[in-house]
């Protein structure tokens, strides 16, 4: 049973919740001549410091789920709560603020700004918090230290290896001190050694209290996660820990 309260003069629903994120019969359907049901109605809950793998084929709906969880997209049906806040009622601006504070993103293709140094890339998210330049730089340096790149602060992305670039991307997410790290195929462009390095880093971060949700098509990595969600044609099923 959840206690409901109304916040503000006209109310966005805020429920008392222990869950970090909670999908309530959420679904995504894209309008078309024949509507595309990218995500079938699903109810999911994610706790703090949880490490979850989302596995599935290409086009199965993994990225759609990640977009909904990261507030980059809204469910067309059902509701999505982040720390008890019903996001379906939030304005676009509030959604952006919540996304910037709560979520960090790591993408398969790194998405680093080519004309910025590693430190400048790492502090990108902090730019939109009205934080002073020196404080921003200090947090970015801490994050780069955390991923083992404290010695490459001034390096341009073009001079970094793939593994280093992905670690800069992780540092960019970490510098924001998010509660949830959403990773979309973070090892997809990495060799085996760098892939293990990044996976190990993500595991450490989860151990430190960060919720990590990682989309992957690599079965080995998915199987090694404490919790695994399989997705096929928009239908999500929780994988039984025993079967893994």
């Amino acid at each position, binding site marked *: 049973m959840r206690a409901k309260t109304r916040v*503000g003069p006209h109310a966005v629903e805020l429920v008392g919740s222990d869950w970090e994120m909670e999908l309530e019969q959420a679904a995504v359907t894209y309008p078309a001549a024949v509507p595309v049901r990218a995500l079938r109605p699903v109810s999911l809950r994610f706790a703090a410091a949880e490490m979850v793998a989302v596995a599935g084929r290409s086009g199965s709906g993994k990225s759609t789920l990640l977009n909904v969880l990261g507030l*980059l997209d809204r469910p067309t049906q059902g509701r999505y709560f982040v720390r008890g806040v019903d996001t379906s009622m*939030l304005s676009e*601006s509030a959604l952006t603020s919540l996304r910037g504070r709560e979520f960090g993103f790591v993408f398969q293709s790194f998405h680093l700004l080519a004309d910025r140094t590693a430190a400048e890339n790492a502090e990108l998210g902090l730019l939109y918090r009205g934080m002073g*330049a020196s404080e921003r730089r200090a947090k970015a340096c801490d994050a780069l230290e955390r991923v083992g790149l404290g010695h490459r602060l001034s390096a341009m992305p073009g001079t970094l290896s793939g593994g280093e670039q992905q670690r800069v991307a992780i540092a*960019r997410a970490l510098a924001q001190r998010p509660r949830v790290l959403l990773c979309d195929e973070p090892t997809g462009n990495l060799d085996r050694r760098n892939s293990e390095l990044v996976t190990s880093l993500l595991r450490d971060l989860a151990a430190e209290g960060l919720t990590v949700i990682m989309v992957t098509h690599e079965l080995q990595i998915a199987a090694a996660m404490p919790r695994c969600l399989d997705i096929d044609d928009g239908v999500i099923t929780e994988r039984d820990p025993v079967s893994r």
Partner: protein
Amino acid sequence: MIWPKIPRRGRSRRRGPPIRSERRRASAAALAAIGVERSRLTAADAAREALVSVTRAPLRTVLTSVGTVLAVGTAIATIGLSDSAAGAVSGTFDALRATIVTFSDNNRFRSPPDLTDEAEKPLDRLNGVVRAGLIWELGGGGRLYQVGRTQPEPGQPQIGLPIAVASAGGLATIGAAVSAGRLYDVGLDHRGTQVALLGATAAHQLGITGVGESPVIFIGSVPFTVVGIVRRAPLDPGVLLGLIIPPGAAEVVAGKFGVDIGRQIVVRTVPGAAQLIGRQGPYAIDPLNPHAIAASVPEDPSALRQSVNSSLTSLLLAIALIALGVGVIAIANTTLLSVLQRRAEIGLRRSVGAAPRHIAVMVVSEAVLTGAIGGLMGTSVGVLIISAVCASRGWAPVLDLRLLLAAPAVGALAGLLAGLYPAWRASRVSPISALQR
């Protein structure tokens, strides 16, 4: 789910999502309840980001600002060159035309005439007069001109030449200069010495190349010794066609071999003094009867210049505006292309917390900065063009300093205008579609 009920100005009530402002307030309150602050970008950070973007991608900046460089450069060069040319034309105009005043006798048959070389002196004393001089033409029939040292015999070849009478002051006023010999002076004039100057054209016609052998020209039976050959007289080039004699000597032949035509005192003034000298001159020449003297004053050049300048300014403004319009379109086009190329960056910024307004501010700031840089570069190009053209034409370069200071601001304004639409487009980029690329 709790949907708020929003009163609609007391008339009716509706069910459904709250209106935008209510939704914003409710959203802010919900975020505050879980300790999440609103995304914000300080002006200093926006400016720094724009500076970094513009300086780290110099090629993109240069390509984007080409339109402004051309527009501002064209405007500066056009305005500067027109001002410089107008200055040069105006200077010549002032020096040669707008500074000449002529005085003539209203009663041309009065005897003795008011306009004598004595009248030059009070005019010379007027403030603003550079030089005053008597000059007229000795016209009429019955003139015989003969080159030689002896009296012409009846039946000898005769050549008709126009005769100008000019005092020493008159020669100076019309800017007479000799190629051989010298000009006669006040002493020769006052003594009535029968000397003459020969215009270069007339000298060529008579086959006289120098005055070393003191050639003599007879007007009727009166001999005049040629003391110089006049090669130029900018204010009265007609004198080059004939003979110039001093007023003192002219008295000997006037009436007998010719009559006075158009006796006048020509005054050269400093620029801007012609109108005043035209009013004061008659009083200086004949204080008791100033109305007997007619003054011919050139049209006030300031009015003419103002009219010309006004038309020129309108034309230049139109050219500058067209150039600026082209610049704005060029920047807008390049900025829009840049936005399309940077969709992934925009998507990334949106994903890390940048609101659509932050993206719009980023694009506009960069466009403004690019425009200002284009304005500066355009100003430099314009000044270089003006300097080069003026140096080659021998003009004094003229450019309003305020224009130099305003040009970068105009460039920035062009950037602002050009950045608005791309900024709007950029702010609407969906982070999902941008990041999927």
